[in-house]
């Protein structure tokens, strides 16, 4: 065996992937070559070192949390539009006599939707990178059918956003949240895209545009309705940096009443209380009084009572 072959087989030897014959040849070479022996010892040392990384076991609580979140997502899946399509499509296709009718209906529906959705498709006419320009006319994404968004990469320093997606081929869009077409794509993604990682990246991308009404509405929507707890919390942190308004106020009150996760709920209540006290916003007093009187959580009752006291004095 030569040193080059030794090098090629080193990892396979360390991880017991060599056949018996190759293994013998490898070991024979090690005995006769000082350099390779040193390399093997170093590699063994690194292998041992890498075991210092500890295995993190999922706690039972995390597993339960994961299952509950999954079941909620499955509810959404089962009773949302995907579930609807899944439930009626096999029935229609199951009857041979109706297949032609079903096919014709679907074709007609496709044409109809294509016609109806044309204005939306036109919104995707965004300046594109060179690799994408080969797939579609430069600067025009009309009628491109997007199958999948694979990446949303905002650059926090420049405000540029790069979106990678699969349509007829892989495409990369570049722009900023100020571009209404990029914005529309991101707003739709944060509200309805399946992949939580993409929604999280989309949140980062939209943060810079929170003054835009559609972005503001989407961020508030994510705070209230995203199926992922971490995402709702991140959206909540983001909306706290936005200008106060009746929509935000109502959304936080709704979260205080309906949010399932205690951590997110308390953060929403804290945001409400902090705003009320700092801005001396007395319009929130009735809601804070209600929480101070009825909430099941002692911390919430005390915090809200104190805020009401700060706002209206001893009259409370």
């Amino acid at each position, binding site marked *: 065996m030569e040193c080059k072959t030794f090098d*090629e087989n*080193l*990892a*396979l030897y*360390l*991880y017991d*992937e060599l056949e018996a014959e190759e293994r013998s040849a490898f070991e024979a070479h090690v005995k006769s070559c000082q350099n390779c022996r040193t390399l093997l010892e*170093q*590699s*063994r*040392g*690194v*292998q*041992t*070192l*890498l075991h*210092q*990384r*500890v*295995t*993190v*076991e*999922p706690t039972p609580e*995390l*597993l339960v*949390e*994961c*299952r509950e*979140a*999954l*079941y909620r*997502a*499955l509810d959404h*899946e*089962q009773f949302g539009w*995907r579930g609807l399509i*899944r*439930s009626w499509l096999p029935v229609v296709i199951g009857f041979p006599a109706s297949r032609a009718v079903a096919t014709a209906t679907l074709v007609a529906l496709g044409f109809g939707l294509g016609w109806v959705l044309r204005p939306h498709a036109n919104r995707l006419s965004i300046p594109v990178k060179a690799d994408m320009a080969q797939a579609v006319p430069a600067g025009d994404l009309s009628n491109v059918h997007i199958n999948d968004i*694979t*990446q949303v*990469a*905002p*650059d*926090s320093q420049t405000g540029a956003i790069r979106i990678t997606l699969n349509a007829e081929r892989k495409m990369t869009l570049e722009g900023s949240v100020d571009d209404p077409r990029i914005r529309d794509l991101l707003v739709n993604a944060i509200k309805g895209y*399946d*992949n*939580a*990682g*993409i929604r*999280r*990246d989309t949140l980062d991308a939209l943060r810079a545009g929170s003054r835009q009404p559609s972005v503001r509405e989407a961020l508030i929507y994510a705070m209230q309705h995203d*199926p*992922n707890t*971490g995402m709702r919390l991140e959206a909540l942190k983001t909306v706290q940096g936005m200008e106060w308004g009746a929509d935000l106020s109502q959304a936080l009150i709704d979260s205080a009443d309906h949010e399932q996760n205690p951590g997110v709920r308390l953060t929403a209540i804290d945001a409400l209380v902090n705003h009320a006290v700092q801005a001396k916003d007395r319009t929130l007093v009735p809601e804070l009084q209600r929480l101070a009187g009825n909430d099941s959580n002692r911390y919430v009752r005390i915090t809200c009572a104190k805020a009401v006291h700060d706002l209206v004095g001893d009259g409370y």
Partner: protein
Amino acid sequence: MDGICLELAGKVPAEGSRLDEADEHDLIRRAQHGDRAAFEVLVRLYDREVLRLAIKVVGSPDEAQDLYQEAFLKVYRSIAHFRFDSRFSTWLYRVVMNVCLDHLRRQKNRNEVQAPESEEGQPEFFQTLADEKPGLDPERSVQGKEIRQRIGTALSQLTPRERMVFELKHYQGMRLRAIGELCGTTEETAKNCLFRATQKLRLALVDLA
């Protein structure tokens, strides 16, 4: 294909008693016809191992939770296409692998723009590394911390596919053939990934070994 099945089946945690193949097939068929309860039983059979693997790959339990959900939603949507020509566990783990690979690719791209930092100012990955007993020997503790940081940095330099192959080989002890099948590639590609990964790690960490 059986190689994968044996390795994974052995690691699947049983909640209650493990099902035999016929029972599992029955559950799958029911799930394929929209029986949500049957699908949930399948989830509970495999989800602990899925979550464990996701945590190992991404380091953070929060991100692992996202991967867990994404993987099982994909399985739910496509279970009707499962044709019983491989084990269900193999098919399921292939979906999980793809989800993990996509995540690593996104994470790598994101890190190129801005390295995410945790509250302590360390990349999140390092949170998964063991804390030594700091009270016992401060010098050793600092040394241990530095070593773990170096390991984390070295691992983060691998490409997503190299990282997945290395993770499954070094920490899960799977055979390369099985890894290739799970990652939707060949054994040869898995070998090459392992070769490159070990070489990069050796170069990055040899002074500590």
